[in-house]
């Protein structure tokens, strides 16, 4: 299991490029509340203009990390730099990092225009200037003419855009977003994912996005840091995280995977034969330092599995338990002969299958990843 950040495809090192190229850097940041360590020895560098996500389950410390970047908490150790300048001693209202809150925190007693103008007024800009900027930003987020609307007159998606506009009008170095899609219904959330990405392109501002929803992180981000128990497990592009997770936690948390617990019986190279706890043996590729006799988990992506005959590699027999239709995301639930349930991707929803049909599930061993068993 990896300790601290593992950066398998981290951006080029600071030594060659110089610190100024990162809009936001954290080095060895730690935050303790009494005896409890919320954030432990976290480092990250976010290049200018990128969309960076921190993905982790609730309670993993991601919100604390964001609050330290915004200045609402002070790190116990480590340093935070914005555009190369340390901001640890700078109060929150003097940092050029703006934040979109989980419940947006739009000011209910102000109109849309006043909400957006708030930050500009705090800066002491002239009335005419403010008016121009407010109108301009509303245009850019696609809500022209809503200046005088009251907040409660807006729909969920509109509020979202106003919250972003309120920050973006101040041209921040980094925009922090704290699970802002959590309160939206599913359909709107799907839509807003794309819209956020487009907005980020449009503004070309660095976004730091916090979420516990892996699909949000994967869809929008250039880089994702997977966080668990106060530490970064892995930083990488969504594709790298998905295809080459470095730990069982990442493999289990990012994307869907069938997880079969067992023990390594013998190994040849990185290929290992795993005796499953529920009986039977399967073959996979060890992706960390696990060796013979270790308790491990074998992760199988549904789309790495095939039900067709004649495929190479590992093969187990089973019966179709149920068909889970979901359009392009359709799955077939197979009960393999040793008793476990396995989800198999079925993007073309094969009509020939019926419940109770005998099938054989096959995969190539290099697509079955074996990691040391996660502690619970």
């Amino acid at each position: 299991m990896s300790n601290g950040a593992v950066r398998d495809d981290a951006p080029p090192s600071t030594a060659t490029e110089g610190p100024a190229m990162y809009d936001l850097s954290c080095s060895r940041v730690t935050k303790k509340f009494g005896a409890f360590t919320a954030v432990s020895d976290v480092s990250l560098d976010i290049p200018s203009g990128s969309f960076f996500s921190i993905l982790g389950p609730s309670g993993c410390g991601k919100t604390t990390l964001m609050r330290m970047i915004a200045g609402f908490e002070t790190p116990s150790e480590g340093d935070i730099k914005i555009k190369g300048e340390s901001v640890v001693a700078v109060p929150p209202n003097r940092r050029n990092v703006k934040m979109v809150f989980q419940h947006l925190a739009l000011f209910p007693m102000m109109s849309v225009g006043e909400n957006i103008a708030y930050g500009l007024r705090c800066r002491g800009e002239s009335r005419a200037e403010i008016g121009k900027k407010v109108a301009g930003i509303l245009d850019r987020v696609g809500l022209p003419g809503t200046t005088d609307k009251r907040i409660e007159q807006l729909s969920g998606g509109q509020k979202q855009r106003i919250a972003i506009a309120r920050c973006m009008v101040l041209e921040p170095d980094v925009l922090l977003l704290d699970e802002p899609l959590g309160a939206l219904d599913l359909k709107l959330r799907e839509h807003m994912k794309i819209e956020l990405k487009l907005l980020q392109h449009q503004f070309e501002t660095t976004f730091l996005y916090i979420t516990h929803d892996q699909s949000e992180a994967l869809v929008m981000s250039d880089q994702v840091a997977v966080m668990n128990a106060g530490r970064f497990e892995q930083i990488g592009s969504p594709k790298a995280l998905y295809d080459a997770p470095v730990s069982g936690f990442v493999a289990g948390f990012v994307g869907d995977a069938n997880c079969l617990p067992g023990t390594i019986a013998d190994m040849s190279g990185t290929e290992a034969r795993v005796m499953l706890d529920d009986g039977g043996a399967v073959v996979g590729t060890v992706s960390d330092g696990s060796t013979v006799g270790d308790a491990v988990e074998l992760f199988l992506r549904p789309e790495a599995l095939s039900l067709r005959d004649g495929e190479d590699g590992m093969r187990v027999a089973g019966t179709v338990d149920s068909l889970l239709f979901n359009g392009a995301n359709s799955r077939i639930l197979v009960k393999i002969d040793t008793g476990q349930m396995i989800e198999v991707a079925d993007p073309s929803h094969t009509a020939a299958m019926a419940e109770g049909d005998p099938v054989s599930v096959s995969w190539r061993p290099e697509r079955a990843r074996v990691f040391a068993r996660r502690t619970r």
Partner: protein
Amino acid sequence: MGRDAGRLSLFLLFTPFVLWIGLLIVLPQIGIGYVSLREKIGINEFSFGLKNYADFFNEPIYRNTLLRTAWISILVTALALVIGFPVAYYIAKIAKERSRAALFLMCLIPLWVSDLVRAYGWIVLLRETGVISTVLLRLGIISTPIEMLYNDVTVIIGLVYTVILFMIVPLVSTLQGMDDALLEAGYNLGGSRFTVFRRIIVPYAMPGIVAGCIITFMLTAGSYLTPVLLGGKNSSWFTEQIYNQFITRYNWEAGATFGVLLLLFTSLVVWAGLMLTGQSLATTVAKD
């Protein structure tokens, strides 16, 4: 059948409310208004007219007492707001969940005893031979006993003490509804402490501020014992005039007139206050 039953239960639910409003609020006010329009000619002889009101406006003592009462009430309301706001903010936002209830109860304690006992409490503290004067004397801070009763400052202190809870309670309940994220957003977008207070906390708390101010102002203007007992020889308080008219002068007509005028005048002050601060009852107190 079902509808009849529904209507009956609605009727039964509303009856106490209507009776309460009707018998205890509307009817007495109509009665007072009626008596105030009665002019006494001789023994048990009356005619109707506005003479009682004319008498009020022609007598500077009454006018001045009413203005004085209103002015001190406004001052008391303002002080209660200035002192009560930080207390309410502390209870609602800073205090821990557990100590919050205790703090709230502490604010309630003064209400557990009657007005009279509270006023005597202040008298025991503040009189010339009272606790404070004696202690100061003993500590050598003063050389002769000082009398702290019987002046306007004492009356104001006593009134603020009596009414401040009615300021704190509505403030706490509105402030408790405020998401801390609003404050953080206020700072995050570049606001200083003062800006956040002025542009976010105060506007957010406005319904509570308005409700608290109206309640404290009305309570203060209508209070009797505190100003009379603590003010001593120099307390002129309008409710005392009403009492005198009703009780010592048997002049119910004038007493009723004063009552109507007090109600009208305090309502006017509240209305003017709302206008001056650009608030309305619909957007503050009646807001859900």
